[in-house]
Structures are given as structure tokens and as C-alpha cells.
């Protein structure tokens, strides 16, 4: 067992700091843990792989992409957060989740020393969207909860619709 008092300040700093990617959507900046993102692609290079997904179950998803024989759902972050419509130029492909996220741009990579819990006064959907808040320089950013982009229920509905569409496409072929 390690006694906290025996840890050097350097060790404590090392344990706390977390690399994050700062990205923006409709002039709002968000932070996401760097290790939650597997790949960042431009929408131009991604366009060839993305397939239009016509469905009315989850409005923020309009495309899918197949990677390693798994279907990823492409979430428009602007629609997810209820922000004004923009033209996303980048896609963040998340790690360990079948989600790719359309964003406007990457601001930079940086490290945050701690994630402050979201104040309890916030009681809406943002409790699922964010892990908490980061205070960096003189700015406060929400830190994204990657599992918040699509709920288990939304995944189920999308998977069901996708399976039906695949079946219909197979019959037509």
C-alpha cells in the first residue's frame, strides 16, 4: 500500500494530468479524453466510406460507416448538443464505442489537471453528455462523456432499423 504523503509532487501531478483534445462545434469548445478517440479524419476523406442512413429514430445520426466488420453510427455533434447548424469538417472516431462524431474543428491537444464534477444544479441531459468541467487558463470547458453520444436505447433502435434496411437491400439485390 502506498501512503499518499510519501508520493512526490511530481508523482501526484503525473497521476492527475490527462491529455485531452479540445474541439469546437458552432463556436462552442469541448474537451474529450485523447484516449477516447481512436482516429481523426477529415469529412472529405471519410465521405467515401460513409453510407447514408435514412431513418427517423435518432435525428442526430444520418450516416453509418463500416469498420472492422462493425457498423459505426455517425453522430452530428451540433444536433446532439442542440447547437446551430454548421458544416463539420472533421470526424472523431471513438475508441471502444461504435460512434463517430462530426465536429467543426480541432483547437488543440492539451492536458488538464482535474475534471470538476458537473454542479448538481445541472439536471438535464447534460448529466449524460459530460463527465464534468475543466478549468484551463481562464476558460471552462465541458469534458465529454463518450458514452453520452448514443444511449443504449438509441443503439438498439438504430441497430434494429439498420438490420431491417440491410435485409431489404439483400432482398432487392
Amino acid at each position, binding site marked *: 500500500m502506498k501512503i499518499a504523503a510519501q508520493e512526490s509532487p511530481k508523482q501526484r501531478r503525473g497521476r492527475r494530468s490527462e491529455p485531452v483534445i479540445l474541439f469546437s462545434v458552432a463556436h462552442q469548445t*469541448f474537451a474529450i479524453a485523447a484516449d477516447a478517440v481512436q482516429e481523426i479524419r477529415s469529412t472529405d476523406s471519410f465521405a467515401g466510406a460513409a453510407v447514408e442512413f435514412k431513418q427517423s429514430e435518432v435525428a442526430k445520426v444520418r450516416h453509418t460507416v463500416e469498420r472492422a466488420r462493425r457498423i459505426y453510427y455517425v453522430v452530428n455533434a451540433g444536433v446532439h448538443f442542440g447547437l446551430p447548424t454548421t458544416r463539420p469538417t472533421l470526424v472523431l472516431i471513438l475508441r471502444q464505442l461504435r460512434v463517430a462524431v462530426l465536429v467543426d474543428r480541432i483547437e488543440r491537444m492539451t492536458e488538464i489537471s482535474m475534471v470538476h464534477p458537473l454542479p448538481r*444544479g445541472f439536471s*438535464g441531459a447534460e448529466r449524460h*453528455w459530460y463527465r464534468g468541467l475543466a478549468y484551463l487558463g481562464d476558460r471552462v470547458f*465541458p469534458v465529454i462523456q463518450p458514452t453520452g453520444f448514443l444511449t443504449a436505447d438509441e443503439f438498439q433502435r438504430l441497430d434494429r432499423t439498420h438490420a431491417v434496411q440491410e435485409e431489404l437491400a439483400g432482398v432487392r439485390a
Partner: protein
Amino acid sequence: MDAAQATARDSYVLLQVGNRRFALRADIVSELAPAVRLHNFPHATPLVVGVIVRRGRIVPVYDVAPVLLGRGSSVHRFYLIARRQFGNATEASAIPVTGECELASGEAHPPEMGRQRYIAGTLPVGSEDVDVLDLDVLLTSAPVSPSREIHRTSNASATEAQS
């Protein structure tokens, strides 16, 4: 309840929201802060307009003017920071106020029948009766429509005229 506690219970902070004065129990008020930078980000909680950083803490800011006045408050010069109760825990909460606050003491009367749930009582201050706010109820209240506000204001004017 000892004398000190009783005094604390009878002390109120008078705050100005828009053109009206309200009172909050002084024992839940922490400080009056200058209008520091408001940080906002997408969320879906009514009344919350963002957060401020105060003494290293991130404090949510609630615009209560739509509830109290039926419209947003465009000008504010200070944040009144008070403690909101969440079960056994409390959390600092900031309310934009337009003027400096003052301390008043006295015995608040129970609210009249039919008043909004966030009105905990009425405090006589000079010739004025100031509504005492229940912060926890206020911060979970829905904004009033302008028509309801007009009705309430005209009632208040009628009461003032009668007195």
C-alpha cells in the same frame, strides 16, 4: 435554537432583480461577487445560464428574472452567491443581481394565500413589504409567461394603491 441562531434566522439579504427587491435568508448567503466572466456551454437545465469561477470553485449561475419578473434581466452588476440544498449537501449557486445588496432584520410574515410556491414569506422593510424567496423552490420553478406577470404586477399595484 439559541439567540445567535434566532438572530441568523431573522436576518435577510435584500437583493435587487430588475426593478424589484426580494429577500433571502442571510444564513444561506455566502457573498456578493463582482460580475466576473460567465462561461456557458450547451445544456438543458432551465434557468441556468452558465457558470462562474469563484475562489477556485465552479458555480452555476441562475437567471431568476424570467421567474420573478416574467422576462430576462439584461443588466446585472453583481452575483449573489447562496447555498442551495441538495439532500444533505449544499452547493454554491449564483444569482445575477442589478444593485448592491443590503442586510435587513425583522420577522417575516407567512405568505398570503395563492402566492407562488417560491415566496416563503413577506418581510416588512420600512413602508415596503418585500417577498422572501425560498431559494430551493425558486431555482426549480418554471419561468412565468408575460401575461401572468402582468396580472401579478397589476395585483401588486392594486395592493399598493389600497395601502
